């Protein structure tokens, strides 16, 4: 696997004031396992990441939107990312996930999927992904978590489609949207393409993030929701439903948090993901957020 990384942003410039540097070195000592947590566990290399500077980008939020009793597009907004996004270059591999399973912090992936090796772990639920993030946080001393839909779309760059343009030609004729969505989903489907490919099969995108848009859909932290707009297009009511989380990939879809394989076939409507996997983001530690706020980047 050969990955060309996008240049990483150096969050900590050499010009940091001495006072901040002193505090920082103590924090780094904790983060690198020199002191404190899990001193007995074997050293664990943190996953490869890229850091993306926040920038406004047009975005349609996830969720089912209603206006005037009809299904409508989510309004086009500017996503409010305010801190650098530190995201894994690759999806979590089967080998890495197996380590968490071996330490009994994660449940085994669904049988029939790659149990080990340099392929993305698949056959994992939202709950599994969250358990892995918690385990990795404990083992590395950093705060790893699933990305939100906004964060995932930001990292996905050009791949993140405008989810508003899915053939909603006539809201009063639901069949037209079904037909348009069906055609789009049918065009995406690659025969014989459901077996997860090794990490790096799809090279890094313009943000240095690899393996996006393949046959592995990725869990996000974002809850499914029903959003009702008022007559002026403003949100009148939001009813979140966190038993379903949004998975992202070639298209978005809400999936129950305990599902490990969104089975293909048999659906009266919709195009289920081929496989469910995930990648994580790392929250910048407090001192980096502080540095960003005071202008050191």
């Amino acid at each position: 696997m050969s990955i060309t990384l996008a240049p990483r942003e150096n969050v900590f410039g050499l010009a940091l004031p001495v006072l901040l540097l002193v505090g920082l070195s103590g924090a780094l000592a904790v983060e690198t396992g020199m002191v404190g947590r899990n001193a007995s566990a074997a050293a664990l290399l943190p996953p490869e990441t890229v850091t993306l500077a926040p920038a406004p980008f047009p975005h349609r939020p996830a969720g089912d939107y209603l206006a005037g009793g009809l299904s409508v597009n989510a309004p086009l907004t500017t996503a409010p990312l305010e801190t650098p996004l530190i995201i894994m270059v690759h999806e979590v591999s089967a080998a890495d996930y197996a380590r968490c399973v071996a330490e009994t912090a994660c449940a085994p992936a669904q049988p029939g999927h790659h149990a080990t090796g340099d392929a993305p772990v698949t056959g994992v639920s939202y709950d599994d992904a969250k358990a892995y993030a918690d385990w990795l946080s404990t083992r590395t001393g950093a705060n790893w978590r699933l990305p939100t839909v906004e964060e995932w779309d930001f990292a996905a760059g050009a791949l993140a489609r405008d989810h508003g343009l899915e053939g909603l030609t006539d809201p009063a004729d639901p069949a037209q949207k079904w037909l348009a969505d069906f055609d789009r989903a049918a065009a995406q489907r690659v025969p014989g393409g459901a077996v997860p490919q090794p990490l790096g099969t799809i090279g890094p995108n313009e943000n240095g993030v690899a393996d996006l848009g393949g046959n592995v859909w990725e869990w996000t932290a974002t809850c499914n929701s029903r959003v009702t707009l008022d007559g002026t297009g403003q949100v009148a009511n939001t009813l979140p439903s966190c038993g379903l989380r949004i998975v992202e990939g070639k298209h978005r879809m809400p999936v129950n948090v305990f599902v490990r394989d969104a089975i293909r076939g048999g659906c009266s409507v919709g195009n289920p993901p081929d496989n469910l996997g995930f990648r994580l983001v790392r929250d910048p530690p407090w001192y980096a957020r502080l540095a960003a706020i005071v202008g050191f980047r």
Partner: protein
Amino acid sequence: MNFAALNLNRRALLAGLGTSAAVGAVIGQAGVGPAEAAPAPEATPAVDPATLPHVKVDLVAPPFVHPHDQIAVGGPKVVQFRLTVKEKPVVVDEDGTTIQGMTFNGSIPGPMMVVHEGDYVELTLANDASNTMQHNIDLHATTGGAGGGALTMINPGEETTLRFKATCVGAFIYHCAVGGEMTPWHINSGMNGAMLVLPRDGLKDGAGRPLKYDRIYYIGEQDYYVPRNPDGSYKKYDSLGDEFADVLAAMKGMIPTHVVFNGAVGALTGKNALPAKLGENVLIIHSTPMRDTRPHLIGGHGDYVWTDGKFGNPPSLGLETWHVAGGSAAVALYRFRQPGIYAYVNHNLIEAVYLGATAEFKVEGTWNNDLMQVVTPPRPIA
């Protein structure tokens, strides 16, 4: 192989259809009463088929059906078909699981053959020279000779032509029946298809009014028993001989790993969805060689359904789901009244969702609010 016993059983079963006065006297027509009440068919004067018009038909792969007249034009004809048995690897799902398939003309199911009652069928069966096994064909539409199986056994590199008279009206399956444990194995490897024998004056409802179709689709349901590795993944074999013992052991477990329409998971979904237009009458023939099944059109019905597939019986009206007995083919006619995507499933939805028994119809047209409309869209419970 005991063809005599097979033949006797089939004759007994066919007797009720009045194929001959002598056999008809043995068992009465179901539901009609004693044998004497069954109508004795007129003895048809023997004609020399050589004097009849000959029509050669090029078969097409399912779900499509070769062009044909719904009402016969002119008198009986000799209709000539050619089926070539091809042994070849077949991919059966989206993960690339591959079986060593056995096929008629390369497709699973084999092609639909359409004739009219009273026509003579001249079927040439060829066993491709690259094959390794003996093959034959048993056509449920025929009378005697184990459905033709007793007369058509051929080795690789051979071909034979069988002529039979189409005396029974309806949809009938055909399959390989080389004998013993070879028979279920060959059928489960893909060697089955269907024949449609139409009444000369076309399809009718129970009151004798004509029924016509704008489109015809042939859906063949197929169960596979793919052996697994210890880790649960499917095994792949290099040849039929390699897979034989393992596949037979899996078959005898009676739990299919795949139940699919037209040979593979997804063969009739997505890009391969069956197109139709609002208002069109679509004739759906659904065959299943071994296992019983229960097709259901999600969001639609069967306006007229010959659930047994036989046009001597009046069609049932407005069915939600219909039963297709293993070893038969059902015929359903439906006029689409709303646009959209219709899943057509084996309504054992475990089989539809997990094992693959799903097709999709894609129907273009304009929505009818009179038939369905949302009154209160989803909202928090008051």
